[in-house]
């Protein structure tokens, strides 16, 4: 079935956030810091105010009286006294039109005193630091240390200890639609129309940032031009709302692509020190030490480290392990979630390390994985029981494919395999409201379709299948957060799986209600006739709307509501020695990928020719949507693997904040041959036993490519992305990163 939003989008007929306007609207633009770290001595806005058309200028000084409560100095909405990264908002200028706003912004004078900046993790930490160094390090945001057993003792008795260092780069989500919003404050109604993956999350974030009760904040989502994790947080909305409050006018803010790279939320570099112990041919222990650059993130708000560390152990049985990591606050762009946050990076380190260990021993890396991979009934490193998990099945399929490709590939090509695992956000809750009305079956949603098809296609399919009717009679309508039922948002690969669960319950509820109301006692069946739900029982059939009460008719229909709050994700094992915070997993999802590459020995250029993905699906709910997610995720992962890298110049400025220098895949880049197999059967906790799909297929991509390069050349590239420069350096036998610029 064709998605009903596809043609209107192709005709340019659907409005996105950058397209919306209101009469009397002001345009606001940011004045941002040109320095990674500087003291703000003075902000002079007089020149800006003289520009014809400028209506208002907002600086940190204006905030105290404006917010219902004092802003916290550690979490400034605008830079106060110091700037912490290039691109940090220092002021906003609102004007009657965009040229006036820009002219005004250029005339805001900020007197900075430049301070020493910490922007280069590698230079700051050439080695894993000692506990003493870190105890007094001013930039430590979070520290996690978890272990079972004594790694050093195991290493002492081991036959072999394999040690490597891996490093990953700054990458950005780069949806084609930049962030934009339009705010209008009228009395106690703080209303904002915005491009977001999570209207209710934005509402909570705004209430928190502005010190307002949630009821006063009303968020309405627009059609979203791609999210990929970057549209979960209130970014421009607080500023637009504050300017609207001050001016009494609607205020529009839209970011430029340069601003997207600088102060939307991106992934920053990480360094991994990996150690694995072998005893009698068996992997018995692993230690990961991770330094994670979390950019100019806010003190005490770190989820990334505790969530990602566990992925560096891989889904393998280990007798003992040690994980230690520091999240470091630096003067780089602030860190935020990006499609399976940090999992592609952790898996690049973990699966590259495993691959090189197996190859060093002369063992087939897939066989090595099969000897150690978790099977249902095992326990994860953190001590949770392993539930349904198709990693072994995926590895067997990958082994078959890798052998066939190896046999048919021309000499010089390499074939690599990588196994990624993930745990999705299916534990986060959602509520559904399904209405039987004269217009058909209508679902009311807070979040708009963001592109993956989960809201617009997945949810109607769940309703339709539950009732046994075609999806065409189910439609989705949108409401703002004051009207739509709560949902956690379109993130964490959760929407079809988890919100779909609530939607299925609502459809079941409707079925039961109609069965109760239909005259007679035989079995009830449903069909669609002229776009309307029709009920049949004992040879009689009539429109379902005939069963509505007069009150329901007056109120627009028969409304059924249902909630689904996922299972608790379990607890970490007792006896695990843990400092800091780590998080248990929900459903475990495997992605096993195979890549065939050619490597140009002269230039170091890598070409991916064949690619296969064996995905642990549980159950596929929306096949075209599933396919689209896997195709898109793999190509995005190839960008992370081969070309995408935010580079800093020596002064700490991002050197390539735009599409001409930060290279995302184009039409000529994807592998010409891609095989996707969704393996059903290891059921997850989503509707019908489904597992999430948005994130899992990006996870093993960089590792699969690097492992294929190692197979082709014998050289292991341990730094992302695998640029021609790094690959040719590795081919010449250089063990260290040649640097492709500083990260």
């Amino acid at each position, binding site marked *: 079935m064709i998605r009903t939003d596809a043609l209107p989008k192709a005709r340019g007929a659907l409005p996105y956030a950058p397209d919306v306007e209101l009469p009397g609207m002001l345009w606001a633009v940011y004045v941002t810091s040109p320095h990674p770290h500087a003291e703000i001595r003075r902000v002079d806005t007089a020149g800006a105010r003289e520009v014809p058309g400028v209506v208002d200028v907002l600086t940190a000084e204006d905030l105290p009286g404006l917010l219902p409560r004092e802003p916290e100095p550690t979490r400034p909405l605008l830079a106060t006294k110091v700037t912490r990264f290039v691109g940090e908002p220092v002021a906003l200028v609102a004007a009657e039109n965009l040229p006036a706003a820009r002219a005004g912004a250029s005339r805001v004078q900020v007197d900075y005193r430049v301070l020493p900046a910490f922007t280069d993790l590698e230079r700051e930490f050439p080695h894993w630091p000692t506990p003493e160094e870190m105890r007094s390090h001013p930039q430590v945001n979070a520290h996690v240390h978890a272990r079972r057993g004594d790694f050093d003792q195991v290493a002492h008795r081991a036959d072999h200890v394999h040690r490597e260092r891996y490093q990953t780069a700054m990458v950005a989500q780069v949806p084609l639609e930049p962030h934009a919003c339009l705010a209008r404050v009228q009395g106690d109604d703080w209303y904002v129309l915005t491009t977001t993956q999570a209207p209710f999350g934005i509402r909570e974030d705004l209430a928190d940032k502005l010190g307002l009760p949630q009821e006063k904040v009303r968020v309405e989502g627009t059609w979203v031009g791609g999210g990929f994790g970057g549209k979960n947080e209130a970014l421009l909305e607080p500023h637009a709302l504050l300017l609207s409050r001050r001016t009494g006018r609607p205020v529009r803010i839209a970011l430029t692509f340069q601003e997207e790279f600088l102060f939307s939320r991106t992934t920053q570099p990480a360094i991994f020190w990996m150690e694995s112990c072998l005893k009698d041919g068996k992997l018995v222990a692993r230690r990961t030490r991770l330094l994670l650059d979390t950019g100019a993130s806010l003190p005490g708000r770190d989820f990334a480290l505790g969530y990602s560390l566990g992925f560096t152990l891989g889904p393998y049985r280990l007798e003992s392990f040690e994980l230690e990591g520091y999240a470091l606050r630096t003067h780089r762009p602030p860190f935020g979630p990006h499609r399976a946050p940090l999992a592609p990076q952790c898996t690049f380190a973990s699966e590259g390390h495993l691959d090189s260990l197996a190859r060093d021993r002369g063992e087939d890396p897939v066989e090595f994985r099969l000897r150690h991979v978790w099977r249902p009934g095992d326990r994860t490193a953190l001590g949770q029981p392993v539930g349904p998990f198709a990693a072994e099945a995926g590895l067997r399929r990958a082994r078959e494919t890798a052998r066939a490709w190896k046999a048919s590939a021309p000499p010089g090509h390499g074939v690599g395999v990588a196994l990624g695992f993930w745990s999705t956000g299916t534990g986060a809750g959602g509520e559904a409201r399904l209405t039987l009305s004269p217009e058909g079956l209508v679902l009311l949603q807070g979040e708009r379709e963001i592109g993956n098809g989960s809201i617009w296609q997945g949810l109607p399919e769940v309703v339709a299948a539950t009732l046994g009717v075609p999806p065409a009679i189910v439609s989705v309508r949108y409401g703002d957060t004051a009207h739509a039922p709560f949902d956690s948002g379109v993130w964490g690969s959760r929407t079809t799986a988890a919100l779909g669960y609530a939607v299925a319950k609502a459809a079941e509820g409707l079925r039961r209600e109609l069965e109760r109301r239909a005259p007679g006692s035989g079995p009830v069946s449903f069909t669609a006739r002229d776009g309307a739900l029709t009920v049949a029982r004992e040879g009689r059939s009539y429109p379902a709307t005939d069963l509505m009460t007069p009150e329901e008719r007056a109120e627009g229909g028969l409304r059924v509501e249902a909630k689904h709050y996922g299972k608790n994700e379990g607890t970490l094992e007792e006896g695990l020695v843990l400092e800091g915070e780590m998080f248990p997993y929900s459903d475990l999802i495997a992605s096993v990928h195979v890549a065939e590459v050619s490597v140009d020995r002269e230039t170091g250029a890598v070409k991916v020719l064949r690619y296969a993905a064996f995905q642990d699906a*549980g159950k596929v709910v929306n096949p075209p949507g599933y396919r689209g997610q896997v195709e898109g995720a793999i190509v995005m992962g190839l960008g992370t693997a081969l070309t995408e890298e935010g580079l800093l110049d020596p002064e700490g400025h991002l050197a390539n904040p735009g599409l001409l220098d930060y290279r995302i895949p184009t039409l000529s880049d994807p592998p010409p041959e891609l095989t996707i197999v969704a393996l059903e059967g290891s059921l997850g906790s989503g509707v019908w036993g489904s597992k999430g799909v948005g994130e899992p297929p990006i996870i093993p991509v960089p590792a699969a490519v690097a492992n294929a390069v190692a197979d082709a050349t014998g050289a292991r590239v341990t730094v992302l992305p695998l640029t021609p420069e790094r690959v040719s350096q590795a081919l010449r036998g250089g063990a260290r990163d040649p640097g492709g610029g500083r990260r």
Partner: protein
Amino acid sequence: MTGEPPLTLRVNGEERTVPEVAADTRLLDLLRWRLGLKGTKEGCRTGGCGACTVLVNGESVLSCLTLAREMERQEVTTVEGLTGTPEAEAVQQAFAEAGAVQCGYCTPGFVLALVSLRREHGASPPDLPTLANELGGNLCRCTGYYAIVRALADLLGVPVTSELPKSTFTVEPGGSP
């Protein structure tokens, strides 16, 4: 903004006079904010993504890199003007059917670029590799391009050739050990 001259151009077949068009106004902004044609999407504004593609005298141009004043007496066609023509409908339908529209933000740009490519060659329409090559400046972050290539192939009624991205998708049992 006062004192700037007006601009007269043809947009989607209609003559339009826009008062006070500044010398640095981009065609993209003129179309979106002075003429209300929001189907032309604003992406990177630096010529790197193709989302703002429009036709000028039938040829595709990036409206973010084109100065509005250069359009004096020129014929500009946006997605709104092209929609409803058989050539645009064919492209739009092919994209929709192939699953090539996810977030949809890049789609109008692809549609305009494609229509122009297919028109340019008149009698001998470009083949699939040529089309794919010419679309290198139109970026899509959602689909990984597989569905877009499927749409192009469907449009031409040909199979996807060996060097272009093509995928197979199967749902199989066997996911339990």
